């Protein structure tokens, strides 16, 4: 097919617009089937939610008191845990210099509650013995006289001399499939212990603590790539140890890799990561890691890799939380504020409509229709994001959306003014639309890029409500671009190919006479003078 006419292109662009709206409506409809709703989710200030008072305690310290630094760290941890993406606009603050208060919209589910409480006592211990989760009783148990007796002082974390007869008995008596006790007893970091894996499928005897959660600088998850850099489709968890732990980790992996070399199935080649007394992972050491950046691979999917990396990341602080109180709170802002805010928004929009009709006559209706379309897709996107990632609208967010009207309308204004410039220059109206679009398009893309950049950077870097704001900013900028390209421009192309607009009807907003479009050169050496124009 050769060059398509602008009319055809415009029609297919409008088709694209309809498809996008239909897709969004379909997505919202689908989400209603699984418990979503047609309404946008509202944030704490508008719909109320749950307020929890948390008492942080430092594991291992005598009086369980937190100092100011630790309290601030606690706030950061909790903020990450309840609202990592910042879009649900949870509020995290401190109370009386000792408690953390979390207020979040909606009700708190068990998973969130567990995440909040999750203690962060993380430790790395070498595996000495590993086995199935069942307790060995009766005949299966090792006879009293065959129980191991340490022959010497253990020399390193993987030394079997850590295992005493009592420990062996404890190990054999332990059943990981049994109901876990609520309180995990304190484990001495300097001695070997018996532990279960968190999923209850394995039990271990572990050496003393060799590295702590605080030795972790960062953790992330990614797809595993092989030596040639091609991703294998497997997921892995990447740990980054801090400077001081690197050498220690190198020593440990050197020791274990040697054991691995002798017997790949030796449990002693495994290094257990413990959280709160349970082993969350016990990877086999398959290399000596000297740069402090190991990668754990195995049976991960994306979710489990993410879960482990988050446990590693936020487990790096020795603070746990008790939920002291939990209560439902009503909206912090009265219903009055929402109502008034919406009334103000409607008044503001009406003023914008009136103004654009004044300025652009019938063309103003294109502005109005475009704003309506932009509003509809923004709203649908907000509803969908509410379901997918708990995005919630606060009053500030609603105000932000109303403000976005101004920036969205600016795209149309830039465009219309360019068209008028072209008409002033003496072009026919359809031609002016094409040329005006060519230059307006560049300006619109460049300027929206600024908004998008601000949104992306602020979203990636900041925390809390600034993140929520950045998200809204980006959302409206994208909606704006979609509308300008797939609605406003095609609508204008089609309109200006009608008789009325194409000839610059009196109220079209494109009337060449009103725009002084008389060609400057009038032939035979006559010039239009400015005195003539004003008349």
């Amino acid at each position: 097919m050769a060059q398509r006419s602008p009319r055809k292109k415009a029609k297919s662009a409008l088709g694209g617009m309809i498809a996008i709206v239909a897709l969004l409506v379909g997505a919202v409809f689908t989400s209603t089937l699984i418990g979503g709703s047609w309404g946008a989710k509202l944030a704490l200030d508008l719909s109320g939610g749950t307020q929890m008072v948390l008492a942080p305690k430092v594991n291992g310290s005598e009086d369980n008191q937190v100092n100011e630094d630790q309290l601030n760290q606690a706030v950061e941890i909790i903020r990450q845990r309840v609202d990592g993406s910042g879009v649900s606009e949870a509020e995290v603050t401190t109370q009386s210099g000792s408690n953390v208060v979390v207020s979040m919209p909606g009700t708190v589910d068990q998973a969130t509650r567990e995440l909040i409480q999750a203690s962060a006592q993380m430790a790395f211990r070498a595996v000495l013995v590993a086995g199935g989760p069942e307790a060995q009783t009766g005949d299966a148990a090792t006879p009293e006289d065959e129980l191991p007796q340490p022959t010497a002082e253990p020399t390193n974390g993987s030394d079997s001399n850590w295992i005493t007869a009592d420990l062996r008995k404890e190990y054999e008596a332990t059943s990981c499939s049994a109901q876990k006790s609520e309180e995990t007893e304190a484990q001495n970091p300097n001695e070997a212990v018996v532990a279960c894996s968190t999923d209850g499928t394995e039990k271990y005897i572990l050496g003393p603590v060799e590295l702590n959660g605080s030795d972790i600088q960062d953790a992330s998850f990614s797809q595993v790539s092989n030596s040639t850099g091609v991703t294998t489709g497997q997921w892995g968890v990447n740990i980054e140890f801090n400077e001081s732990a690197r050498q220690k980790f190198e020593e440990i992996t050197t020791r274990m890799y040697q054991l691995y070399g002798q017997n790949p199935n030796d449990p002693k080649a495994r290094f257990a990561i413990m959280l709160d007394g349970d082993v969350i992972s016990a990877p086999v050491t398959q290399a000596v890691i000297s740069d402090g950046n190991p990668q754990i691979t195995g049976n991960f999917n994306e979710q489990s890799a993410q879960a482990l990396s988050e446990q590693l990341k936020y487990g790096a602080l020795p603070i746990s939380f008790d939920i002291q109180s939990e209560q439902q709170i009503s909206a912090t802002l009265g219903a009055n504020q929402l109502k008034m805010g919406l009334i103000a928004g409607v008044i503001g929009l009406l003023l914008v409509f009136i103004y654009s009709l004044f300025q652009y006559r019938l063309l103003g209706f294109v502005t109005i229709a475009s704003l309506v379309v932009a509003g509809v897709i923004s709203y649908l996107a907000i509803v969908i994001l509410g379901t997918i990632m708990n995005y919630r609208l606060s009053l500030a967010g609603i105000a932000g959306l109303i403000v976005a009207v101004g920036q969205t309308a600016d795209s149309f204004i830039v465009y219309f003014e360019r068209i008028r410039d072209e008409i002033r220059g003496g072009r026919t109206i359809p031609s002016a639309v094409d040329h005006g679009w060519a230059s307006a398009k560049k300006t619109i893309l460049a300027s929206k890029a600024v908004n998008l950049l601000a949104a992306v950077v602020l979203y990636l870097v900041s925390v809390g409500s600034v993140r929520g704001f950045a998200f809204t900013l980006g959302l409206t900028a994208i909606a704006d671009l979609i509308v300008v390209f797939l609605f406003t421009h095609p609508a204008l192309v089609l309109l200006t190919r009608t008789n009325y607009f194409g000839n610059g009807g009196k109220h079209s907003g494109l009337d060449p006479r009103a725009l002084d479009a008389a060609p400057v050169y009038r032939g035979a050496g006559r010039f239009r003078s400015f005195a003539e124009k004003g008349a």
Partner: protein
Amino acid sequence: MANTLARFGNALHSGEKSFGFVPKRKLWLGIATLLVLLSLLVPVVKGGFNLGIDFRGGSEFTVSDVATDDVSVGEQAVGESAPEASDVRVTAIAPGTIRAQMGELTDDQTLAVKDALQKAYGVSENEVTSSFVGPTWGADVTRQALLGLVIFVVLALIGMALYFRTWKMSLAAIAGLVFTVVVTVGIYALVGFEITPSAIIGFLTILSYSLYDSVVVFDKIRENTQGLLSRRDSTYGEQVNLAVNQTLVRSINTSVVGALPVGAILFIGAFILGAGTLRDLSLSLFVGIIVGTLGTIFVSAPLYGMLRLGEREIREHTRMVEDARAGGSAGLQRATAAEDGLGEPAENQQAEPEETPVKKPQFTITVNNFSLDDSTQDIDSSSQSESGQK
């Protein structure tokens, strides 16, 4: 009324009417510097910013087992017992529970407020608890937001420098941004409203708006000055000024359209609702949109003109244009350079051959030292009669 602005636009477009944004740059930049300095002085004179409870923390009282959820009872009680208390917020956080928050109180005030709340709601002493609450907008939020800002500004600088092919536009845009933000914050502080998270969000929006607005105007400047140095019909300064004038109607329309809804929120927020999210956010935005638009045309554009006019190549070009004018040959000048910015979009040429403009001799008319440069405006011989056929 609409016609007035459209006619105004026509005159600005042709150069018939022109404001001296670039010629009077020293005046504008001087005023801008003065305003920035004054804005910096406002918080100093007023003794620092009036930071809200969200940043500083404060006192909190919880009254349980109340018979009424009427918050005005509590507001009155707090107002009478501790008139100094700032940022008083009384909310019904749950049925039968009232929470009152305010800036930090002294011990005596705390006792007074506790007593007053107890009496006002008619509950026993044990039902009123007081505590100190920390900031919801803590140091970590501020730190990360500032870090994000710095990264954004640096990336925007680089991006603009690449897009416009000159770092001078980036520099001028940043100057406009600093002007906008400092003056907006200054005016906000002058009004005496408390700085709340909503206000900060407003300032961040303004920051991005300011750069956005500069890009729109600069894009026109880029277009107008493209290929200019190979022509002799107008000086660089004139073209920069013309670009600002030509986008003036757009600037006015955009700020009006942006300010209208915000103004409506501000009106309702300030006069009907009183202190709160809507008022703080809309004030910072209302002021910011207006200051941001002014910042682009009175700071960024003149500064850019000033930066470029100092270049040797452009100085020489200006002299040549002026010489040519003095020599009396300025009236009729054949334009040579093709105008890229208004070039024909290739895709349309084949589809609609009747629209291919016929190049005619092009003329420039000098009025008030500004040229009407018709090389930017292809005169379309097949004007209105043909468009009806399509």
